[in-house]
């Protein structure tokens, strides 16, 4: 995986000559390891165990016993198919849109920004200085009926007065695209910035015009960034529920919304857990297929 390269490279230094039984590496690992075990490994097993539990007849709400009922998965999935598919469709569209916006942006910053490079990079991350929730709420204003976008669009002949953007799928996808844009831009920038401009000159020297150079040299060399960026956008977007909650309507519910309401409103832990696992497994499979297909393992 492209964004793991840095990490793996650091471990490859040959240390055969030193026969040290130092415990330093373990001490350095310990905080992270303890953190992961406590807050990731244990909860994930607990969640797995919850996913096959059943509420005994007549028991209080929120009381479940382990019966290894794998039918929970089938039930959970069949009941929420629609939200599943919608999650992946929305996340997919948002990822493609983010890529389409971020690529020219990252390209510009990497190759054409000159002394403004750092300013532009700060501007890419600047939204992080305010809360994720606030920024999403702000989109209800931007897309509101009296907001700048709707009123501008209404001036055009193709739209009548019934035009609305809030509480529509468009609003949810816009929110997702916007919120995850920096996660797309930064890895893309990192990849593009590493390209030696001389390789682009070399392509021109070898009879490739601008477009061919872009297609045959720039894009392939930017692939690690494309893969990292799309994953960093798609994975959280598929599981997101904030955008659908704030910008959508009951018909734009994503799987994150279902999980959230199963956990906190319905207090149906097994279904929520089963849904979470199904989501995780689906994402894992999609990501594996994607990385296989994009062939970025070979890229150095």
């Amino acid at each position, binding site marked *: 995986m492209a964004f793991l390269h840095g990490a793996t490279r650091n471990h490859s230094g040959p240390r055969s000559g030193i026969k040290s039984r130092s415990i330093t590496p373990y001490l350095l690992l310990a905080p992270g390891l303890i953190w992961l075990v406590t807050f990731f490994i244990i909860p994930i097993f607990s969640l797995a165990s919850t996913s096959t539990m059943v509420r005994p007849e007549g028991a209080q709400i929120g009381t479940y016993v382990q019966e290894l009922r794998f039918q929970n998965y089938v039930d959970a999935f069949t009941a929420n198919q629609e939200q599943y598919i919608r999650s992946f469709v929305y996340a997919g569209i948002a990822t493609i849109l983010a890529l389409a916006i971020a690529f020219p942006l990252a390209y510009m910053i990497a190759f054409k920004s000159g002394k403004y490079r750092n300013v532009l990079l700060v501007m890419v991350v600047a939204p992080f200085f305010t809360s994720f929730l606030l920024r999403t709420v702000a989109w209800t204003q931007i897309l509101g009926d009296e907001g700048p976008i709707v009123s501008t669009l209404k001036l055009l002949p193709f739209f009548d007065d019934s035009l609305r953007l809030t509480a529509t799928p468009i609003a949810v996808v816009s929110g997702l695209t916007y919120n995850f844009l920096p996660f797309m831009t930064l890895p893309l920038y990192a990849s593009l910035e590493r390209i030696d401009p001389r390789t682009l000159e070399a392509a021109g020297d070898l*009879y490739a015009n601008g477009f061919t150079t872009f297609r*045959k040299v720039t894009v392939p060399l930017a692939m690690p960034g494309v893969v990292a960026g799309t994953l960093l956008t798609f994975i959280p977007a598929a599981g997101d529920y904030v955008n659908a909650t704030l910008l959508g309507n009951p018909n734009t519910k994503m799987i994150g919304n279902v999980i959230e309401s199963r956990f906190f409103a319905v207090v149906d832990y097994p279904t929520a857990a089963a849904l979470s696992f199904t989501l995780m497994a689906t994402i894992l499979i999609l990501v594996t297929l994607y990385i296989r297909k994009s062939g970025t393992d070979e890229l150095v």
Partner: protein
Amino acid sequence: MANSKVSQDTGDLVLNRVSKFYGDFCAVDDLSLTVPDGSFFALLGPSGCGKTTTLRMIAGLEEPSQGTIQIGDNDITTQKPYRRNVNTVFQNYALFPHLTIFENIAFGLRRRGIKDVKTEVENALNLVELGHLAERKPGQLSGGQQQRIAVARAIVNRPEVLLLDEPLGALDLKLRRQMQIELKRIQMEVGITFIHVTHDQEEAMTMADTIAVMNQGKIEQMGSATELYEAPKTAFVANFLGQCNLIKAKVQSRAGGKAVVTAKGHTFEVPLSRVSTDSDSVLLGVRPEKLRLDDRGVNSIKDCVVTDRSFVGTSTQYLVRTPWDLELVVFEQNDEGLHDLHVGDKVSLEWDAEHTFALDGAQDINAGADLEDEE
């Protein structure tokens, strides 16, 4: 390619009064140059002398501010790089890291719509003797191998002119020597015009048929390595190519095919053919290996003192101070005639009139000295 010496007869490369400005800075100043078809030509000069800018204008990566560039009858001044039949071996090679060596070399051929590239790529790989590496990626190759691939990638397109931008700069000394011979062999085999940009005078002298020494956007002097070395026309060329002793002197007479000059009460003779100025104030030049530690010759300086000595294997290099406190460099071959002098020893210097040259005395006596290691 091994079986076909390319005789395209594409015509000479002609730069006609080319200038390049960056704002107020003049990188190349009214430069005119003709590179004969099929020659190995070197643009030699210190960093910032405009040699790389000149090369990039020929490649089409920069556009001249003034002047024209032609190959034969074909004006290429404003032609896009991907339209001109000129290929470049870039500094640090600029191989495509995502493509195999085979695809790197095939890149230019494929862009021109050639479908069957296999034979040509293989021939190019064999030319640089790296046929076995076709399926590797550039990152898996050593610097020397990458360098050869960069040459193969350019040459496979059979350009009218091949440009080499400091192609050996990143290699260590031993590999560089080897590649110099290699490049020369390749050039003889394919017969394409090579234009080699370098700041390394030894590299230029080893490989090129003709060398143009550049300084501050202009060509100081152009000629074969021997001409430039034995009969430099400017102090810059004298100092930049190898080491040189320059002595400020006055011309007393010009007659009988020789000029008589004096410096600090000493009289020297120079053949008139080796005097490149009409001025009476001259810089008298003689190369260190032409000086002998003796006092029989026409041109001699007595009462000198050895101030430094270093043994460098094939020769011993002395610094010798003249009675008027000028330090001259003397190389003495390590054979039977060895003097084995030490610091403080008194010596005399002598050299032949035909090894002497005289330059215009208005120049900076140190121009071009100690520049070659800057990069």
